[in-house]
């Protein structure tokens, strides 16, 4: 089910109506039923239901056995087996072709001549999201942070709660159990605020993101015809597309959940206002970062291999650098995996993974040098211009990663970077923006939309926008929300005449 479709909105309205007239004790059961309906609308292959059932059963049985385990060792063993069983299915459904073809290519390096035929596997909607959520849950139970859920239906609801199936966010059981199964009285504010957020998500996705996509596709699909300035424009446009697409989706998801009184964690915090790459990752896809940190990075650092490595490095490079180098090694694996999670291709491993590892590590290693330069030049770090420069610098670095992410292959990305040398930058004053598939009127709407988004994002730093609007008189409030809805209805890219694509992260 596409979140920007009228069928989804109708689905949500029907759910809300039933939800608030349903016996409060049973509300969670209705959520489970509607989560299944949501999956049924999104998946036509019967096998997909078996995959989903597998995840629910494995994580349920595994977590309950862990809960009953007599000692830590047994706990660890069951936890590992459960995580591996869940992980194997994820690899099978999402990465089998990547793993298979990469393995064959590697074997072929030794003179063997094997080939790999890509298998067509239809994965259920949100498979990576609900599998990682289930893995996190099993680990939390193993750590004793969460108690195992004894009711399999309640457990199924946690894993398959429909708002998080499209693109996350990654939730933690200990946060969700408080809100997901509790009784929810009808709160007018929740429903209002939820729908307001949904409308804002529609605005980001349908008005801005879909228009940016046209410019992006024009250049990235024919980059040899669009060198220099066009690569710059398209890369910035893609950064905007990716943000408005993904955060728009999150607005719809979190807003939907808010109408039900179920609070989901935030996934974005105006990431393009970040002053460093580390900060950027604390503000972009927040729950993914937290998941990898908690369930992947820290366990790696605490593993015997890394503890031994740290001891050895400390001996060679000293205590400080020994610890740092071990962390950098762990981060390398972390970022490699984050890149791999985005897709089984080197462009993702570089663009969303190792390039960011390089930024963070080189930033840390060179920090003393930068500090010295700042000192010599008498630059005030608190100065607005310096902060602005830091934001611009971070945005440029992110854009380079995005260029890899969006390009068809790593080789294409490198070629595009090379073509930045073509000196056609003055074309920006000769209507270069109008050569990328959007006419003047569409471009005007896109730019107005971006400016509105920027204004709201800046205001969000100081104010709670929805709360502020709520305090205004009824005419003012109605005018704002009705105008926004009508604006999206008129200028949104949806329906006949347009072909609005699915959310980018829905495919992960």
């Amino acid at each position, binding site marked *: 089910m596409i979140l920007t479709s*009228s069928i989804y909105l109708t689905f949500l309205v029907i759910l809300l109506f039933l939800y608030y007239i349903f016996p409060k004790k049973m509300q969670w059961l209705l959520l489970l039923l509607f989560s299944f309906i949501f999956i049924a609308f999104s998946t036509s292959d019967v096998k997909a239901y078996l995959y989903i059932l597998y995840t629910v059963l494995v994580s349920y049985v595994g977590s309950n056995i862990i809960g009953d385990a007599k000692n830590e060792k047994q706990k660890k063993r069951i936890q590992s087996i459960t995580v591996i069983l869940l992980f194997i299915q994820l690899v099978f459904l999402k990465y089998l072709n990547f793993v298979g073809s990469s393995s064959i290519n590697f074997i072929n390096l030794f003179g063997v001549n094997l080939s790999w035929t890509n298998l067509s596997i239809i994965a259920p909607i949100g498979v990576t999201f609900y599998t990682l959520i289930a893995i996190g849950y099993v680990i939390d139970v193993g750590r004793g942070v969460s108690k195992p859920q004894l009711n399999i239906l309640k457990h199924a609801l946690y894993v398959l709660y429909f708002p998080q199936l499209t693109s996350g966010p990654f939730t933690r059981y200990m946060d969700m159990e408080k809100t997901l199964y509790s009784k929810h009285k009808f709160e*007018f504010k929740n429903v209002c605020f939820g729908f307001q957020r949904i409308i804002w998500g529609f605005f980001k996705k349908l008005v801005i993101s879909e228009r940016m996509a046209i410019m992006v596709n024009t250049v990235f699909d024919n980059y040899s015809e669009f060198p220099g300035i066009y690569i710059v424009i398209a890369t910035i446009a893609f950064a905007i597309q990716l943000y408005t697409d993904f955060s728009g989706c999150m607005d719809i998801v979190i807003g939907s959940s808010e109408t039900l009184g179920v609070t989901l964690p935030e996934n974005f915090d105006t990431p393009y206002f970040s002053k460093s790459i580390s900060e950027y990752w604390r503000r972009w896809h927040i729950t993914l970062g937290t998941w990898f940190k908690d369930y992947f990075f820290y366990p790696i650092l605490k593993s015997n291999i890394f503890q031994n490595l740290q001891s050895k490095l400390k001996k060679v490079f000293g205590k400080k650098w020994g610890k740092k180098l071990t962390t950098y090694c762990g981060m390398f694996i972390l970022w490699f995996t984050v890149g791999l999670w985005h897709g089984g291709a080197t462009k993702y491993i570089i663009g969303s993974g190792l390039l960011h590892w390089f930024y963070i590590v080189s930033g840390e290693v060179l920090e003393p040098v930068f500090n010295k330069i700042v000192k010599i030049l008498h630059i005030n770090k608190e100065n607005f211009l310096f902060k602005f420069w830091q934001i611009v610098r971070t945005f440029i670095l992110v854009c380079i990663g995005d260029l890899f992410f969006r390009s068809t292959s790593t080789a294409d990305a490198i070629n595009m970077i090379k073509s930045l040398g073509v000196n056609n930058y003055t074309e920006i004053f000769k209507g270069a923006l109008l050569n990328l598939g959007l006419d003047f*009127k569409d471009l005007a709407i896109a730019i107005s939309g971006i400016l509105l988004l920027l204004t709201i994002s800046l205001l969000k730093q100081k104010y709670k926008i929805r709360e502020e609007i709520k305090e205004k008189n009824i005419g003012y409030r*109605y005018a704002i*929300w*009705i105008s926004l809805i009508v604006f999206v*209805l*008129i200028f949104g890219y949806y329906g006949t005449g347009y072909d609005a694509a699915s959310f980018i992260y829905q495919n992960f």
Partner: protein
Amino acid sequence: MKNIVKAISFLVILIIVIDFVGQIFIPRWNDEWIATPIIKDFYDLPKNSLDVLAVGSSQVVRGFSGLELYKNYGISAYGIGTGQQSIQSSYAWIKESTKTQNEKVVCLEIKMLFEDTPEEQNRKALDNMKFSSNKLESIIDIAWKEKSYETFISYLFPITRFHSRWKEIGSENFIEEIKATNYRGYSLENEVSGNLDYVPVENNIPYDAFIEEERYECINNIIKYCKEKNIGLIFFKMLDMDWDIERHNRVEKIAKENDITFFDFNMKDLMNEVDLLYAADTSRNNHLNIYGAEKTTNYLGEYIKEHYDIEDKRGKDEYKHLDRQLEQYNNDVQNAKIVNIFNPNEYIEALNQKNFTVILVKNNLPNATTLEYNKMINDLGLDISKVYKSNYYAIIEDGKVIAEEGADQNIHLETMVDTVRPVIIDTQKASINFEGTEQSNFHQGFDVLVYNNKSNNVVESSYINFENGIPVIGR
């Protein structure tokens, strides 16, 4: 409670705004098929003022002229036909009509029993219909058939279908520019196809054509509904190149089973009875022209008058609006028909009709003494002694000569026609300058300008020449 009121008031305002914006975005189908005016004007009809409603496809728009029924039988009729209007939409319109009208007869054009309706044509039939259970039912039917919820929403809120037109929205979406007049659901067409390929349908094959289940169910619903409402139902089929005996048989079967009269104007016998000729009575797009529409509508009128007890509405105060419409219709028909006349006697007769101002300028025409020449001069009421001069002009209004001059030297006249229309005539150049525009054909003979002082428009410029003393009409 306060919050519920707030939520409901917000939703009501939102729906009103969305509907208002949607109305702006719905295309104005104001071309010669007048889909938008037909529906908008229908809603303006006085309550309980209809005797006969015709529904169906574009064949109704070009074949059923309601004002002919009023003119000749005193019947108040209206046609609701849009391009390829589905039988389901026709049913919706019959029901919609009975909400405000108490028609005695429904004439259902049945072409679309056998054809699918594309989306853009469904839009024409339904998007301008006021929201009602009829409309909702039709929308559900279409969405169900397409298995598309988005389709349902797009008919419910047209903005979701037409929002991509936002770049085209201009003044025309607020001020309606109508390109053809709506004569109670009829759009006038005077083109003559001259197509001789048409073969009338003969009753020579006993087979029936297939009707899709939903359409069959719908026609049965129409029959049932009309019976319940005590409305007479007539099936009819206009001249159509694509029609065949199998389809005829199928409809006839349904008609017989339900005791319904079916007029298939494609049947050889009926064509002969009505004096229909495809080449003369249709335009090039396989629809009836004004000549065909007059014949078929009057035939239906004759039948209705004979079989239904319908009071003659002519001369009644509450039907004065029909008199006004009829006056305009007659005038426009008159304009439309004259351009197709090539027979000199008929043409002279047409030029002498009321409402026409005719300007004739002689152009290099040798004097003749043939009977035909003299008859023409006489029929037009011209003075032959003046006509024989080398320079000559005449102005005829409502069949009477109001100005005429013949001279050996050039005549240059600057005058007014219809009080305010400046005309400059120059006999030497054979020029007829009407309101700053040259209208003469500069052809040997009499160059003619026909102006309609009722509709205030130039109807045509033609010439009357004499070849071997025989008059020839040219344009």
